[in-house]
């Protein structure tokens, strides 16, 4: 390879690395600013409640319906597999643990990223495009306190609640399929589930995961919106990045958190 081509490749790699490091630094500074301005989000509780409504309440339909169907599929698939080993009565344990530990936080996190995360990015990006953010700054109002922090905390509060409701609907869906349609004994279904799932560590670990996912998704969403290039194409790119980055972050964080949560259990 001629020296010129090597130089070209090195320059491109250097530029890309420089951009990535600079963006990482900017996002860390952004996170610090969001935390710094967070007390403002609680002083203006009305703004944060409004964001909980937009991120949480308006995401209810997709969460509840998805939870129901995921639970129904789990009931069907779980019973089919367990029954082959004569363990059909363990359906309650299988469904409960799957939902509370993994599927509830992860699937609701992915749905939250698509439904609420993309909406947050698009809204902030469009506010930037239409100079609303600049207008706010010129009116001596800090957009971090007025726009970013309330959305950040609205997302963090909404996410664990949505994950919990997703799991509840999932269990209900599995109950409908397993008990009502297939005929698993109702007492066995609930009794096994109650005996196998502990508040600590099963439910608390699920809550911890959903809180971490909530932080990751909303932070990515507000950052991408704020950092969006103020054009139609820029906002569209930022929205896509939010969904992709948040989804990957959820899956990677899920693995890391699971590793830490199983530490010392002999696995």
């Amino acid at each position, binding site marked *: 390879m001629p020296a010129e081509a090597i130089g070209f490749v090195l320059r491109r790699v250097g530029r890309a690395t420089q951009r990535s490091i600079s963006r990482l630094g900017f996002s860390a500074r952004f996170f610090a600013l969001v935390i710094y301005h967070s007390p403002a989000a609680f002083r203006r509780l009305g703004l944060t409640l409004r964001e909980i409504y937009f991120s949480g309440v308006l995401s209810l339909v997709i969460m509840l319906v998805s939870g129901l169907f995921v639970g129904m599929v789990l009931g069907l698939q779980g019973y089919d597999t367990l029954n082959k080993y004569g363990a059909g009565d363990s359906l309650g344990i299988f469904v409960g643990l799957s939902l509370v530990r993994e599927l509830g936080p992860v699937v609701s996190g992915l749905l939250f990223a698509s439904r609420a995360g993309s909406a947050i990015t698009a809204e902030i990006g469009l506010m930037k495009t*239409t*100079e*609303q953010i*600049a*207008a706010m*700054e*010129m*009116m*001596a*109002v*800090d957009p971090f306190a*007025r726009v970013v922090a309330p959305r950040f905390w609205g997302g963090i509060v909404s996410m664990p609640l949505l994950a919990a409701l997703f799991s509840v609907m999932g269990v209900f869906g599995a109950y409908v399929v397993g008990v009502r349609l297939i005929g698993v004994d109702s007492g066995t279904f609930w009794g096994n589930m109650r005996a196998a799932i502990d508040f600590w560590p099963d439910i608390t670990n699920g809550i911890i995961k959903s809180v971490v996912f909530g932080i990751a998704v909303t932070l990515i969403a507000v950052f991408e919106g704020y950092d969006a290039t103020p054009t139609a194409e820029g906002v569209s790119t930022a929205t896509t990045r939010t969904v992709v980055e948040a989804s990957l972050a959820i899956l990677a964080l899920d693995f890391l958190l699971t590793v830490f949560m199983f530490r010392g259990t002999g696995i």
Partner: protein
Amino acid sequence: MPSIVAPTCPTETAVELSGVSFGYDRRRPVLTSIDMTIPRGRVVAIMGASGSGKTTILRLIGGALQPQAGKVMVAGQDVSALDRDALFALRRRIGMLFQFGALFTDLSVFENVAFPLREHTDLTDLLIRDLVLMKLNAVGLRGAAQLMPSELSGGMGRRVALARAVALDPMLMLYDEPFAGLDPISLGVVGQLIRKLNDALGITSVVVTHDIYESLKIVDYIYFVSEGRIVAMGTPAEVRASEDAFVRQFVDGEPDGPVPFHYQAAPLAEEFARAG
């Protein structure tokens, strides 16, 4: 909480730019050695073709950008030397009208105008209501108080944004292309409002625009900016009588002149020869 009774500018010169240079990167300067003095109580226009650096001047005055050289003084304060709190304190005394209004789309017209009052004062809801209705009445849109920004025409939106910009009775108003995209009636209305509000409230106004005819009707002084430099200046009467080639091209709307029709490029014949 600061008082809503905003003082007029304490200095005779509301805005002063001395030797100001700015560029987004070192290779392409947007502004070069700009000197500009805007006396208190006047309406001053900054005119020039698109991309000449007009809006950058406005952003430097508002402290959104920092000059690479020179000084921007607003009401006797060096804007680039202010920390964030001091800059925000100064901005509470500055109103800005953005090119397309920049109204908050999730708030009604009333709430848009009330926004700076709610953010910066602890006035009661009743008092805020009266103040907002007064400001909306001044721009002729008291009846539109409950509409959403999406229900307004371009001209109405600009007037609401103007009411919001003067909500805190600023000492200095910055207008970024206030006439862009308006029909002739709205254009006249906005022009008259700029002049009347300036005189009635005793403020100073800086209008960035390329609308020469409307500007000549309402402003006291005009600066012409081209390629980041001030190339001409004068009162409306002096501008009308000017023989300066740039001013004439601008006033007469000639497609070619000191501001060339063609973007800088190699000669056409050379370009064709290269392709062959």
